[in-house]
């Protein structure tokens, strides 16, 4: 490229121009679609957030300035919802990371049937979220649920318990269903990363007398850092926007105990018909997720020299 491009400046240039034109031609359809279904809706949402109106077309819109945002932050439900979303995110991602790491290490130690275990992990992960939610709803069912059946047959409970109606248990049970669904994702990523680690370091440390726990803490864990970050950030972004499983399992109840931020946005936008509040919440969520996404990209697309 260097020597030739100086000898043949005109041809090289025209080739590059041609390239550039082809590039735009190839990118344009995708850009048009993303502009239409993502960027334009974000801008439109931002505009809608300054108006008060019932949800729908051809409704009379009243300009209220920052009124929707003020109403939103004055409502204690909003702050409770943010707290609850944090609770769901931290707890579900925390449990998924720890259990996922444990299962990954278990697979990596190659017990009998480890290939079957790895194979089995794919099933919950591939299960559609709504099927997962429906399944757990019937497991938790107060009258015929498998959880009540199991616990009572083991003699642990005397009477059937209406699990999802208990205010303090509802969220942990939603988290359990999410852990069943997504822990395998973490386990599969970490197990794949473990399989690529060099064994020499670990063996050398073992010869030097380091015990298994020390080796895990000082050698395996630092080497796994990139894979852990990928799993952690991916799960966090995803858990923050939890909607489907809440919709099927609890519908936000009992007494708002499982109401998360995306669910509150949905309720305002549609069942309650408060378009302005819904738009304000939507816009906040977009800004927040884009910032999280940029964080994600920084870790994933770090320049080579930093790796």
């Amino acid at each position, binding site marked *: 490229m260097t020597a030739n491009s100086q000898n043949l400046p005109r041809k090289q240039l025209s080739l590059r121009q041609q390239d550039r034109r082809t590039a735009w031609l190839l990118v344009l359809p995708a850009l048009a679609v993303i502009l239409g279904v993502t960027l334009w809706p*974000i801008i439109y949402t931002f505009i809608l957030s300054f108006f008060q109106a019932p949800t729908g077309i051809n409704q009379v819109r009243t300009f209220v300035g920052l009124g929707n945002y003020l109403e939103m932050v004055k409502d204690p439900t909003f702050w409770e919802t943010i707290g609850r979303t944090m609770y769901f995110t931290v707890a579900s991602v925390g449990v998924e990371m720890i259990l996922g790491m444990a299962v990954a290490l278990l697979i990596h130690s190659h017990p009998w*049937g*480890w290939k079957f275990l790895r194979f089995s992990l794919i*099933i919950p992960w591939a299960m559609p979220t709504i099927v997962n939610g429906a399944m757990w709803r019937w497991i938790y069912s107060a009258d015929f649920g498998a959880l009540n059946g199991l616990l009572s047959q083991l003699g642990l409970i005397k009477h059937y318990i209406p699990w999802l109606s208990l205010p303090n248990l509802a969220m942990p049970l939603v988290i359990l269903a999410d852990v069943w669904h997504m822990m395998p994702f973490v386990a599969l990523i970490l197990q794949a990363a473990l399989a690529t680690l060099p064994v020499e370091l670990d063996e050398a440390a073992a010869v030097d007398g380091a015990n298994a726990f020390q080796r895990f803490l000082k050698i395996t864990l630092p080497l796994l850092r990139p894979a852990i970050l990928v799993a952690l950030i991916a799960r966090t972004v995803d858990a923050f926007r939890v909607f489907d499983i809440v919709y099927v399992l609890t519908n936000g109840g009992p007494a708002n105990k499982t109401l998360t931020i995306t669910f509150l946005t949905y309720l305002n936008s549609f069942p309650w018909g408060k378009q302005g509040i819904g738009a304000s919440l939507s816009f906040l969520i977009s800004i927040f997720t884009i910032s999280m996404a940029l964080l994600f990209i920084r870790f994933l697309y770090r320049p080579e020299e930093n790796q």
Partner: protein
Amino acid sequence: MKTRKLLRKLPLFLLTLPVLFFIYFPILWLFSASLSNQVDLFALPMHWIPLHPTLKNYLDIIFPSLASNSVPRTFAVALLNSLKIASAVTIISLVIGSMAAYALARIPFKYSRGILLGIIATRMIPEVSLILPLFIIASSLQLINKPIILIVTYMSFALPFAIWMMVAFFQTVPVELEDAARIDGCSRLGILFRVVIPISVPGLVSTAMFIFLLAWDEFFYALIFTSTLASKTAPVALSEFVGRYAININGMMAGGILAALPPVILALAFQRYIVKGMTSGAVKG
């Protein structure tokens, strides 16, 4: 030596049992319920294995004309809708996405990195926060309850995803191959279709699988945009029956299993691609 190995292996093996129990207990219960009749399912104390196992719940869905109530009929239509929509989304996003991905991965041009990062960032935005404008536009164009509105809106997550994954695959195609074709007088598009696409088939296949899974799984847009029996997708149909006790629950369980089968079978069949896709950022949720 042998006993020592056994002593080491046995506890590890025993540790796998609770994990396997955790994974399979819900699935097996779902399966067992789908094979029960209504009376057995509601009997107390509960039976783990159906007393009178029956395939009726499945047959009702597969042959909806014979079914006596509306649940299986709805499911048959919904499963077909899901299949059509997920297939269309997969094909369209794969074509448009691969074109863009090739340009972004291989042709140096102004703003290419900014465009790529921007596209990736949009993938994280939840559907909930795009829905109001999309709903207003869809209503004014009278696209509610039409499959096309789901196909178009699903692009908001399917397309960035396709671009993201295909960029990663195209970057692994050796530049020398492209240079050789170029010297032979091949144009950029010629290189893309005759050199790059043919050797990226594994990448295309695994990307297609992930997009199909994502589109099949999608719930929120379908919930907002479909309200008629004829237009609902499988997740929406399932979610509507979940809250109603009186309705045929075992039929729903069979519906749940049938809705889970296509993605689970696909994922198991393409097992070796999955982890690679996951680590390149393919997040399904």
